[in-house]
């Protein structure tokens, strides 16, 4: 579980869950190889990134409007 490719797999799976679509093949792989804790932590991290992205988006929109 420590090799680099698996981290990307976890991240991609979390992002797919944000998006709402995941292929059956990846789902089976995740359930076979993954560890729940990794998904929870990556999920929390991505949730924080998402909130930050929304904040930045609003700031950017307001700066465009000159407010």
């Amino acid at each position, binding site marked *: 579980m420590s090799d680099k490719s698996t981290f990307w797999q976890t991240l991609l799976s979390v992002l797919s869950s944000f998006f*709402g*679509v995941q292929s059956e093949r990846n789902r089976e792989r995740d359930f076979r190889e993954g560890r729940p804790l990794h998904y929870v932590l990556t999920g929390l991290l991505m949730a924080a990134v998402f909130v930050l992205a929304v904040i930045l988006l609003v700031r950017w*929109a*307001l700066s465009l*409007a000159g407010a």
Partner: protein
Amino acid sequence: MVRTRIITIGSGLGLTAVSASALAAWEVNLTPGVTDVSRSVFDLHMTIFWICVAIALVVFGVMFWSIFHHRKSRGAQAHHFHENTVVEVIWTIIPIGILVAMAVPATATLVQMYDTSEAELDVQITGYQWKWRYDYLDHDLDFFSNLSTPREQITNEADKQENYLLEVDRHLVLPVDTKIRFLLTSNDVIHSWWVPALAVKKDAIPGFINEAWTVINEPGIYRGQCAELCGKDHGFMPVVIEAVTQDEFQQWLADAREAKAAEAAAAERVWTLDELMQQGEQVYLSACSACHLPNGEGVPGAFPALKGSPIALGDVAAHIDIVLNGKSGTAMQAFRDQLSATELAAVITYERNAWGNSLGEAVSPAQIAQLLEPTTGEAEQ
């Protein structure tokens, strides 16, 4: 142009074309209003409406075509499969794209709506159960705006007129081509001040001040309503705006302040019992009858009867006190800031002499005016 025609999907697949003006006469669509903001709200509404129409045509078109094309009589066989990632990704990305495309112009309009800076006129709007108060903050002028639809129309004893429940005794007069800031709050429960022609709808919340603004482009009368369920007479507290030219507005301001001064002077002369009874009846019907009923009998369990009431027939000081200061924690409001000294004296006199109450004594406007003096008022509280 596609925009000027509206296509309604009739029953089944029949397509009918109706001109936009016919639709406007039918009054089912949003009003384009009379401000730049209301026009951009209207444009947004139409843009999104057409996007929805296009989506509906595509989705239902494909659905009906599929049903028809793959019907059983043609020997269609269902193709069993479980998932298709590519299709799922496509039908997720397309709606995201559409939503973002809608959000861009919508955000621009919202930002515009919230920009209350650089207003030339401030009007404070306060919601009361069940009327609005307008305060021209820089012009030392404030008044209440009450429903003026006659009660007989409400109780179906007379024919309902064109502006039934959308008419008031005093209009909110505003100048055109002027940036006006509204400061909204409430005296009791949450109300919402809504005028479709201006595309302004804002909650009036006790203890908070909300802001909104408008620049009216065309003189005219614009009507609105309270849009937040606020109790028994929620449907009886309309908004009527009279937009006039800037010169007319200045003239109106001067006249209104003169009338206010004349009223103060009137409190000083001596009023006869008959005069007070006459004015008192009018005040009673506009300010009190919603709760205590026109016949003074009230609503048992909610609003006490004034006919035969121990207070209305008892000590005049106690009667004056409850009308001026209300009773906290009940629907009985303090009327000291809502009515003039003359109106207060008249309505109290009326209550003591109407519906079989017959004390034969008048409460004089001068007597009330003394109680309303700011210093006396503060000492009392």
